């Protein structure tokens, strides 16, 4: 027997869903069962056809939530280059940076807490992420431009005979070099107390300490240069060009 009844079967759920709304026969049953009607009501308000993003959370439409999501996405990509670096020892693994062990890398936390103290250096130069370049020596001479941080301390500078880097503002630092013309060793100390040394001039070679930031980590390198080189030659070799603050009187000329 072929099922050609004019009355649709509503006892089977999958058949009942196929009943078109205008059918008067289905109406009394639908109202008799409010629970069955309830989900159908919002569905009737949905536009016909495919709508992409219907499952997106309601917060996505909020401008503040959208800004937050964008900031979160940016943060996830911020330091991606660190994952591409070759392995390097940490400061706990290296006693001395020299011609054989030339590089070490700090962790993100070591690179960001307290002050990096470089003792025994006689001169230094720095470059910020905004390409502000300056230099100073232990005798108090300065060149180029200082970089002031929000804590009213220089990003890099001498305090007495010790060269200091404010690690709270490490993300403003691009790189710095530390030169040692004395006969003593140069030392680096972190907040944790971890230290590493660089030997003094020997065999006509002086070792320059290069500190440069890659993403959220600092890398420390011992770079050999001829002993006879002056500071200016070393700046040139490392491509430091001092920036200068123009006097206010020069404005508009």
């Amino acid at each position, binding site marked *: 027997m072929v099922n050609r009844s004019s009355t649709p079967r509503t006892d089977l759920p999958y058949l009942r869903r196929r009943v078109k709304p205008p059918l008067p026969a289905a109406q009394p049953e639908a109202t008799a069962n409010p629970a069955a009607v309830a989900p159908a009501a919002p569905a009737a308000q949905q536009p016909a056809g495919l709508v992409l993003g219907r499952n997106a*959370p309601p*917060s996505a439409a*909020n401008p*503040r*939530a959208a800004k*937050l*999501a964008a*900031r*979160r996405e940016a*943060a*996830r990509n*911020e*330091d991606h280059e660190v994952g591409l670096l070759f392995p390097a020892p940490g400061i706990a693994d290296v006693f001395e940076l020299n011609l054989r062990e030339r590089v070490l890398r700090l*962790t*993100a*936390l*070591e*690179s*960001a*807490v*307290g*002050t990096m*103290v470089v003792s025994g250096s006689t001169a230094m130069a720095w470059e910020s992420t905004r390409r502000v370049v300056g230099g100073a020596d232990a005798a108090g001479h300065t060149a180029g431009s200082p970089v002031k941080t*929000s*804590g*009213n*301390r220089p990003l890099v500078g001498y*305090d007495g005979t010790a060269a*200091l880097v*404010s*690690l*709270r503002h*490490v*993300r403003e630092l691009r790189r710095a070099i530390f030169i040692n013309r004395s006969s003593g060793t140069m030392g680096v100390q972190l*907040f*944790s107390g971890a230290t590493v040394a660089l030997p003094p001039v020997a065999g006509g070679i002086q070792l320059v300490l290069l500190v440069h930031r890659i993403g*959220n980590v600092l890398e420390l390198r011992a770079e050999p240069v001829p002993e006879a080189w002056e500071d200016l030659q070393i700046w040139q070799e490392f491509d430091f060009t001092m920036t200068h603050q123009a006097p206010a009187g020069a404005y508009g000329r």
Partner: protein
Amino acid sequence: MASLIAGANAALTGENPGLDHVVVGLGWDAIPSHGPAAELVPFAVLCDAGGQALSNDHLVFFNQLVSADASVTFAGDADQEQIDVELGAVPADVAKIVFLVYVDPDVRGRGSFASVRNSHIRVATAENRELVRFDMPAATLDAVTAVIFGELYRHGSEWKFRALGQGYNTGLAGVAKDYGITL
């Protein structure tokens, strides 16, 4: 919006069904200074059931913007210090997330919370609807160099927030010791 006192807790997901994302904001006023100023650093630690940091990759602060599992993100900028937590993405082995602020231990004067006023922590939705807030009580904080403001923690299948306001005289070193962080 609920205002908490130290030690009090509030159900977040229990009272806000469907909540899977919160923004934890930390704020304070500092007395302006022309000299070297104490620099405060917001910091989040993802802890296991024993209360220890899972690893140093499970810390979130200005120089490590995302936790190892990408569930917690530092979303602060110059104007606001906020940490974004996707509750649904937090791994099961994270039992709580601790929020603290430490004074950066600069060798040219370490500073303390002495110059800090009106500090608070707030938990809000992504749309900035404030769920709970804890205003740190006014107290003498001259010797305090780190403060645990509060923590998000699991309670069964729910997330709750507890206000703490616990000060340290030993700064980040003391916090690191208590939470198993390698400095």
